[in-house]
């Protein structure tokens, strides 16, 4: 068996440190998702509305967030906030801000897509049965929208978890950073540890994201 340098993981509290790093990544994603969903629902609903100026602004916001590499956004918020607002957010707060802005933009597009994918005749047959506008939304449109939305937003969560691997660049000690630290610290004793350590990181990301994407698939099938 080739030497993967896995023994470095057993040294001290290295495994616990990796897990703590994973938790940092998950925590940032979960807080950001929790913020993205309500903002995204509001923005997405506005995007299906009649106000053209508002729609244009939201569209520009969405495109801007999509075009910008997340790393650039992270740098802008982390390094630019002091200059612009005289306030220095921690790396983790910067990450939450960027991920929430990003998540809200993606979410708004998902909400808009889900809303316009409900055929007009669903509104009409509901109204033809005598349901009021509010009842139509409550009993017909919102449940169908949510069913389309939930699997998609779960996929957004896994995308976010994966993207947290960038935040070591603004000094947040998450799982990738911990991995680097472990490798650095053992450079002399186990020079080949990099592969083994990153393999374990890979497995941890996988274990975090896999059940989430299974859940998304399951819901998608169930609510087809």
């Amino acid at each position, binding site marked *: 068996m080739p030497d993967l340098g896995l023994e470095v993981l057993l040294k001290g509290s290295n495994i616990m440190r990796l897990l703590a790093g994973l938790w940092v990544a998950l925590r940032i994603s979960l807080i950001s998702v929790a913020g993205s969903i309500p903002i995204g629902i509001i923005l997405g609903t506005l995007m299906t509305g009649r106000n053209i100026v508002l729609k244009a602004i939201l569209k520009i916001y969405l495109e801007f967030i999509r075009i910008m590499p997340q790393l650039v956004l992270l740098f802008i918020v982390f390094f630019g906030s002091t200059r612009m607002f005289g306030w220095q957010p921690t790396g983790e707060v910067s990450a939450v801000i960027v991920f929430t802005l990003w998540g809200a933009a993606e979410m708004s597009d998902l909400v808009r897509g889900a809303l316009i994918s409900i055929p007009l*005749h*669903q509104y*009409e*047959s*509901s*109204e*033809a*049965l*005598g*349901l*009021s506008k509010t*009842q139509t939304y409550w*009993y*017909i449109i919102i*449940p*169908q929208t949510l*069913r389309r939305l939930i699997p998609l937003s779960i996929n957004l969560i896994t995308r976010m978890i994966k993207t947290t691997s960038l935040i070591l660049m603004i000094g947040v000690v998450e799982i990738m950073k911990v991995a680097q630290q472990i490798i650095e610290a053992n450079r002399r004793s186990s020079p080949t540890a990099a592969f083994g350590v990153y393999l374990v990181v890979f497995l941890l990301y996988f274990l975090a994201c896999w059940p989430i994407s299974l859940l998304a698939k399951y819901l998608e099938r169930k*609510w*087809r």
Partner: protein
Amino acid sequence: MEENILTVEHLRKEYEGNVILDDVNLSVKRGEVVVIIGPSGCGKSTLLRCINALENIQSGTIRLQDEVIEAGAKNLAKIREKIGMVFQNYELFPHLTVIENILLAPVKVQKREKKEVREEAVKLLERVGLKDKAESYPRQLSGGQKQRVAIVRALCMNPEILLFDEVTAALDPEMVREVLDVMLELARQKRTMVIVTHEMQFAQAVADRVLFIDEGKIMEQGTPEELLQHPKTERTKQFLNIFHYEK
């Protein structure tokens, strides 16, 4: 008993300046079955949609018994309860089971007792041969089954009048019959109905009166015998000829 359920007077409907329905007059008596035929795009669907106030109209009046039907009217929901409509593309709600689809409006709109409506719904489902489908989702049903459920859903509101818009047009041929049979049965029960269809033999069998609409106008009307067998106008003859095949 000569009570008019539905009265349409001088109805005019335009889309962006194009006249779709022009001075349409129509009255339907209690228990009467009126069948509307006419070429595609002549305004049949639009007429039914106007009757249900899914479209606003430019002039004229539409009344259900004594109440004026208008898009945006305050009592619109109340009036719509009395108009059952079945569309061409089975518009069931995909996230609800068959029985939930049927119970929604009677329970939420008419505020009727769920248990009582459920009993009625199950009886009606049984009559259309779908009792065992009550807990199925629409996606598990064939087109013909969906249309029968849509009919039951409309019936459970105890409407004064039923509107059918080409309800068999999107069906595979072998499913057309099962849906038409349900409608024939409703006619036998003396339900008031306005039916848009391209099934001429069915029209012959079910109608008390047939209307031929062309280019937004009622061109000719009469008993099925008069209109379908001995049409008077050239246009009607031409149209009916489409349905004849001779060697």
